[in-house]
């Protein structure tokens, strides 16, 4: 295992248990009924949609509901709100998604997605919007 990868990505039974508890808490807290989007604390869905449009995430991602978002350099985001993992192995939890949006290579070295200099608040809005895509 690469030493630059944070400890938490190393699968060990205790970690997995911890992760599943964390995932349960994260999803359980925001998801009161089946089909409802995960909530991101301090994130506003409409503001997030605007930001996703303005930053033109569609240059790399196909995103339903965003005009001209037809890129194929990155994965389509049509179901990102119900995926278990993002970026091929990072648990899809609000805090992780926000951190990934702010600095993708820090969470996944080798990714082709650059850090765009988003603020924490911008990333929270965008994550809130992304969780509605399901």
């Amino acid at each position, binding site marked *: 295992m690469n030493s630059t990868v944070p400890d938490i990505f190393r699968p060990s039974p205790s970690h997995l248990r911890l992760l599943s508890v964390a995932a349960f808490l994260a999803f359980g807290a925001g998801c009161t009924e089946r089909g409802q989007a995960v909530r991101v604390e301090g994130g506003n869905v409409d503001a997030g949609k605007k930001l996703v449009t*303005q*930053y*033109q*995430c569609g*240059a*790399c991602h196909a995103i339903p509901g965003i005009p001209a978002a*037809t*890129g*194929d*350099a*990155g994965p389509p985001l049509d179901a990102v709100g119900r995926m278990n993992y993002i970026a091929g192995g990072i648990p899809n939890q609000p805090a992780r998604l926000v951190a990934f949006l702010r600095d993708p*290579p820090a969470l996944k*070295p*080798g*990714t*082709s*997605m*650059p*850090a*765009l200099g988003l603020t924490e608040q911008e990333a929270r809005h965008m994550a809130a919007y992304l969780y509605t895509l399901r």
Partner: protein
Amino acid sequence: MIEDTLQSVLHPAGWDAAIIRQFAWVMFAGAAVIFVAVMALLALSLRRHERPVRPMLWIAGGGIAFPLVVLSALLVWSTWRSAQLVPQSSNGALAISVTAKLWWWDVRYRDPESGREIVAANEIHVPVGQAVYVGLNSADVIHSLWIPALAGKRDMIPGRVTGLTLRAEKPGIYRGQCAEYCGAQHARMALQVVALAPADYKAWLARQALPAASPTSPQLERGRAVFLEQRCQSCHTIRGVAETAQLGPDLTHVGSRKEIGAGVLRTHEGTLAGWVADPQAVKPGVFMPAASGIDGASLRALAAYLAHLK
């Protein structure tokens, strides 16, 4: 901070555009008044009349005298106003050359210091309050330059140099558009005219005359290496790095431009990476091929380097 404005003939920011707007409103208002009057007469004619109408009066008056007077007045007035349009001449004007290509704009300035050509793309910078003669040409098919807020249209014809004089009256960013259907991506062939105060224009031109910024970090260093490894220089010039090819837009100061892909994406690391990775997904049919075999970290480094070229 200069403002981005609507692409609109109704919001002129240039001398000619203001005259053209006046023509449009006078014609529209006059036509509306005449239309309403004719409709009113038509409605009246359907009523019973005590006295018979005098047809000769209406034919001679409404059909001959009225149009003669109105059209003559319009002719005199429009001739007088047209004479006030900025003369279409390079004489005494700042000359900038614009060549339309499928589907982007090659823009060249003359450096007043060295006399050398400064090549940019998809943005025309002009000083406010000064006549700018834009020499127009096309490298492939017929295009047309139209910046509604500044002036009328002028076709760009292969093998023939035409020209258009622009005079911006206030600083701002004015969107323009190819106005002659030119192929699959005609609709995505836009450009921006950035009108700056004369001193700002001079400073801007001096910065554009400089060769590309040197990398200031290992990441940017790598980005420049990736540019060369991937043979981007087969089509693109970056002054000071590789200067042989002119097929694609000059990238010497690409990071300073507001948009890439001729108005398709706003310039930042993310859009640059997406564009390089697969321009065909964003602007299908464009001549630039999708990158192949470029790993994620290298793509990021390249995008960072290009964004750094301010």
